[in-house]
C-alpha cells in the first residue's frame, strides 16, 4: 500500500487512511477478544482463575471482566501496594517497563480495548467534532493527579479497618472496570445485581458521560485521565517501535500535524509522550519523511530527529 496518502488524489488519500484505520481497528478488536476469551465466564457471570492471572495484559482491560484471561496492570499495582506486605511493586513496574520498552504507546493505538471503544464512538457522525477542550493543556495534567493520588497514594494511605489499602482508581474512576466488568456482571450475575448501589451509579454515570464525549472529542479518557497511557508515554522515545522524522526529506507542509487527532507538533516531536501511535501522520506525510522504525531495520538517513 502507498503510505503517502497526500501525494495522490484526494480519493486515493482517503482510501489509504481508511485502510490503515481498518487494519488498526481489526488488530484492536482481535486483542480485546483474545484477552477476554474465557467463554464459561461470559456464560455464568464468574471469572477465570487460571495461571494467566499471574500475568498482566498490556492495556486497560479489567481483570474482573467475565472473560478476562490476564490481570490489569493498574489494578494489580494497586493490589500489591495496598496489601499489608508491600509498599512498592517491582513486579508491575517490571511489566510496565517491559511492555513500554517494546512498544511504548503502540499499546494505546493498537491493543487497549478501552482505546478501541473510544475510537469506534468517535466514528459516529456528529454536527461538530472538537479538536480539543478549552484548557486542554491543564486538563492533560489531570493524568498526573490521577496517577499520584488515586493509583499510588490512596492505596498506601487510605486503609480499611484490617489495614488493606483502597484501590481508589478502580473504585472511583476506572471506566474500563465499569464497562468490562461492572455492566456485564450486573447483567449475568444475580448476586452482583442485588448488591448494586450508589457507587455503581456514579461509575456508570461517569462512564456514560465519557462515552458521550468520545463521540465529539477524540479519546477524552486517554487525553485527560488515563494513568496507564501517561506511563507508556515516557517510553515512546526509547521503545523498540518508535517514529523517526527525517528533516532533509521534510517539506514542512505540516500535513502530519493536520492529520493528528491529538494536534501534536509531529515534525518537532515525532515521539511525543502524548502520541498514541495511531499512525495517521505516517500516512499523511507526502514525502515519507516520517517513518516507524523497527528493531534491526536499516536507517535510511543519518540525520534524524527522534525527540
Amino acid at each position: 500500500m502507498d503510505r503517502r496518502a497526500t501525494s495522490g488524489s484526494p480519493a486515493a488519500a482517503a482510501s489509504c487512511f481508511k485502510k490503515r484505520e481498518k487494519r488498526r481497528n481489526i488488530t484492536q478488536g482481535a486483542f480485546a477478544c483474545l484477552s477476554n476469551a474465557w467463554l464459561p465466564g461470559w456464560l455464568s457471570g464468574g471469572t477465570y482463575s487460571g495461571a494467566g492471572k499471574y500475568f498482566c495484559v498490556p492495556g486497560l482491560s479489567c481483570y474482573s471482566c467475565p472473560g478476562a484471561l490476564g490481570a490489569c496492570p493498574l489494578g494489580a499495582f494497586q493490589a500489591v501496594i495496598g496489601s499489608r506486605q508491600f509498599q512498592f511493586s517491582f513486579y508491575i513496574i517490571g511489566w510496565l517497563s517491559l511492555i513500554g520498552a517494546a512498544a511504548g504507546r503502540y499499546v494505546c493505538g493498537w491493543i487497549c480495548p478501552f482505546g478501541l471503544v473510544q475510537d469506534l464512538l468517535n466514528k459516529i457522525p456528529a454536527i461538530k467534532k472538537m479538536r480539543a477542550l478549552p484548557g486542554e493543556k491543564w486538563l492533560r495534567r489531570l493524568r498526573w493527579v490521577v496517577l499520584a493520588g488515586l493509583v499510588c497514594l490512596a492505596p498506601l494511605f487510605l486503609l480499611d479497618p484490617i489495614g488493606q489499602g483502597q484501590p481508589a482508581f478502580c473504585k472511583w474512576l476506572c471506566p474500563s472496570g465499569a464497562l468490562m466488568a461492572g455492566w456485564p456482571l450486573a447483567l449475568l450475575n444475580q448476586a452482583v445485581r442485588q448488591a448494586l448501589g450508589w457507587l455503581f451509579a456514579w461509575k456508570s454515570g461517569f462512564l456514560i458521560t465519557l462515552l458521550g464525549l468520545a463521540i465529539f472529542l477524540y479519546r477524552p479518557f486517554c487525553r485527560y485521565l488515563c494513568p496507564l497511557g501517561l506511563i507508556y508515554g515516557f517510553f515512546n522515545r526509547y521503545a523498540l517501535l518508535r517514529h523517526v522524522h527525517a528533516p532533509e526529506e521534510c517539506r514542512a507542509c505540516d500535513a502530519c500535524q493536520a492529520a493528528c487527532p491529538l494536534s501534536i507538533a509531529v515534525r518537532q516531536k515525532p515521539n511525543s509522550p502524548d502520541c498514541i501511535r495511531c499512525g495517521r501522520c505516517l500516512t499523511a506525510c507526502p514525502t515519507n519523511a516520517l517513518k516507524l522504525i523497527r528493531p534491526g531495520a536499516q536507517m535510511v538517513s543519518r540525520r534524524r530527529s527522534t525527540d
Partner: protein
Amino acid sequence: MGNRDQKTYSVTILLFAVAAVMLLIGVTRGEALIVFTKACRICLECIGIG
C-alpha cells in the same frame, strides 16, 4: 546508524534489563501471588460495589 540512534537503542536495552531484574525481584518477593489472588476473584471496587 547515527550516534544518536545508537544511544537511544542503548537506553532501550537498559530498560529491558531493568524490567527483567524488577520482574525477578517481584516474583521472588511473592508479588505475583498477590496479583494472581486478586485477579482471580471478582473485584468489588472494579465493578462499583466495594
